[in-house]
């Protein structure tokens, strides 16, 4: 046959090879880093970042009465490596800022904050294993949350089993808090609020939208966000004309976008992740699909969204936990979102994404609780966390009986001329939202 080059070998081993490839593919994040996880065990940022414990301690190392060790498994490699790094930087900024100001004051004694991170390679099981190692081998005093809902869910079980207080800032699914656990607290606004702001916002705009299409990744958190958004949209009188789940991390979404385009919705909502949000905007453009607006739960809040999409990022709306434009005045060392933003930029050379602020807020909540408890005893600190009620640079922190920071609202940001600006809620909005988005052909 033409074009044939014969395989030198038969297909007898093909089924086992197929199984092996699929295993390798599925297990890649799990098995690949497993052997390296221990040596890669990172206080790695120490090597890379200028803002590490030694420099911070340099100023005042003699004045501390002891140290408190905070541990976290974080995704420094794997599918959420980017978000993991943002989380780590948020923790680092908290540590260094508080250490410079004398650390944590526990009944008159000043404790230095130390952190220990392990790379969970974006794998939830790995995250749980490492949390166990942090608690039982490294003997951390307290646990900081990992990045992502799935790892947080796994780690919460480990924390509960060991009666180890954990505050986390990067797992928002209510499933984390519906297990009846007593040692896990989250500073985030809950999942059901994620796209609510976008819907509230667009309903105030002219022309008022009448219909919406919803695309969601099929992981539990994204589905929770999308379900809540869809229900809320219907309540508010929007017609849901198309609603689809896609396999998590799909980056070819031309098929559902072609379908959604056929339904001609005024608003396209997506609940997913950064890479998917990029794919949706790019492929919508390629397909000439121009709704009046795009709203994402995750994506626009990351600087990569604009650096990748450039002008195509304009007009896109995103729900965010925190923005530098918010007008909070916090009872903590960072005080205002604006001041936090400035300090963060000075330290790391890039603007903070909300993931970083989430992480820093976790640290701030710990300091408040430990200082209120006046002891480092884990059970007492746990009770102090449950009783917290204070305003941070991040917003109000007050946990309900499940451990969710339920009172904090979400803001909405929009990319306008290459800048990310806050457009909702109206009382803190920097500018009016641009609406409707012109057709791609007219941009």
């Amino acid at each position: 046959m033409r074009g044939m080059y014969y395989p030198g070998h038969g297909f007898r081993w093909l089924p086992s090879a197929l199984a092996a490839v699929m295993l390798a593919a599925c297990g890649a994040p799990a098995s690949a880093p497993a052997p390296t996880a221990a040596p890669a065990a990172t206080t790695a940022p120490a090597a890379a970042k200028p803002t590490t414990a030694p420099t911070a301690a340099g100023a005042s190392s003699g004045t501390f009465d002891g140290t408190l060790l905070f541990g976290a498994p974080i995704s420094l490699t794997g599918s959420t490596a980017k978000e993991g790094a943002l989380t780590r930087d948020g923790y680092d900024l908290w540590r260094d800022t508080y250490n410079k100001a004398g650390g944590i004051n526990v009944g008159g004694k000043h404790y230095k904050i130390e952190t220990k991170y392990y790379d969970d390679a974006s794998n939830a099981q790995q995250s749980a294993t490492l949390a166990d190692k942090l608690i039982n081998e490294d003997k951390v005093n307290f646990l900081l949350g990992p990045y992502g809902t799935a790892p947080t869910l796994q780690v919460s079980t480990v924390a509960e089993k060991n009666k180890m207080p954990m505050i986390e800032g990067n797992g928002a699914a209510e499933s984390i808090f519906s297990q009846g656990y007593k040692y896990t607290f989250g500073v985030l606004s809950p999942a059901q609020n994620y796209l609510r702001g976008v819907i509230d916002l667009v309903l105030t705009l002219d022309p008022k939208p009448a219909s919406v299409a919803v695309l969601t990744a099929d992981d539990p958190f994204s589905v929770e966000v999308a379900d809540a958004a869809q229900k809320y949209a219907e309540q508010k009188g929007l017609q849901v004309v198309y609603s689809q789940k896609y396999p998590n991390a799909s980056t070819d979404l031309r098929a559902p976008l072609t379908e959604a385009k056929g339904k001609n919705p005024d608003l396209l909502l997506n609940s997913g992740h950064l890479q998917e949000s990029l794919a949706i905007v790019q492929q919508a453009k390629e397909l000439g699909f121009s709704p009046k607006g795009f709203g994402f739960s995750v994506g626009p809040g990351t600087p990569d969204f604009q650096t990748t999409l450039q002008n195509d990022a304009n007009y896109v709306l995103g729900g965010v936990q925190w923005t530098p434009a918010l007008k909070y005045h916090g009872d903590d060392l960072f005080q205002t979102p604006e001041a936090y933003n400035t300090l963060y930029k000075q330290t790391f050379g890039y603007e903070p994404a909300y993931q970083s602020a989430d992480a820093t807020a976790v640290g701030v909540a710990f300091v408040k609780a430990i200082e209120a408890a006046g002891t480092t005893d884990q059970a007492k600190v746990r009770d102090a966390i449950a009783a917290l009620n204070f305003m941070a640079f991040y917003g109000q922190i007050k946990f309900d009986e499940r451990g969710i920071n339920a009172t904090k609202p979400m803001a909405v940001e929009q990319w306008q001329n290459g800048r990310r600006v806050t457009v909702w809620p109206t009382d803190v909005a920097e500018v009016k939202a641009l609406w409707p988005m012109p057709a791609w052909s007219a941009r």
Partner: protein
Amino acid sequence: MDFVQHILNGLLQGCILALIGLGFSLVWGILNIINLAHAAFIMLAAYVTYFLWSLAGIDPFISLPLTMAVLFGLGYILQRYVINLVMGATILTTFLLTFGFESLLVNLALRLFSADTRQTKPIYANASFSIGPLYVPYTQLGAVVVALLLTYLLYLFLDHTRTGSSIRAVGQDRVAARLMGIDIGRTYALTFGIGAALAAASGTLLSTTSGFAPNGFSAFNVLAFSVVVLGGLGSIPGALLGGLVFGLVYEFGGTYVLSQRDVVIFAILILVLVLRPTGLLGREGYR
């Protein structure tokens, strides 16, 4: 009209998938190596293309031959000085070795390039032209031309050149080939290098169609594997057909059973293996 757009989407995407499968198929068919570093080659090529474009302003379609040459060199060296050492061992050994390369390259790239999302973005990136209600993205169309051209060139090379014949000879019977005076080690390295160069071409094209980071590529190994099994190992038209069929199944799976798209694809793959173990255009080897 949506239906026609779906077919178009599937065929355009299918050509890129075919190109991803082509190099994988060659290496597998001739060297009997399931190259798990294939996706890492694609990733490296995406970065080479990106940096040539962002630092030197070279258009991705112009830098394509250069990127292919770079990856050819890398593939040649890896095979010549590392993989050749274990060619006598069982397939599992090379399988693990290339898996190791994959891990190494991806994590090195994370270190060097960070996890920031990049995209090679000449002005025509993500832009499209329309024919009536149908939309055709420029870069995808360019990718189709490149994919078809490279497929044809590979066919010409294997069927009509002396070196191509020696590659096929080694694939068919390495003992006989050696007796005919073919330098086996060099031929292996050449073949692996060509596989890497083909991977590079797909990496260049992919870097223009969407944002990428070092850790987003591993799925391409499974795609390449599926395309080859579907189309038939050891067949160039097979890789092309496999890619196109895969592209269409992916698109229509995404239209009607989106959340179960992977289930449909792998069900079809298993069905093909049961009903036609050599793939659509493949042919049983000599043994």
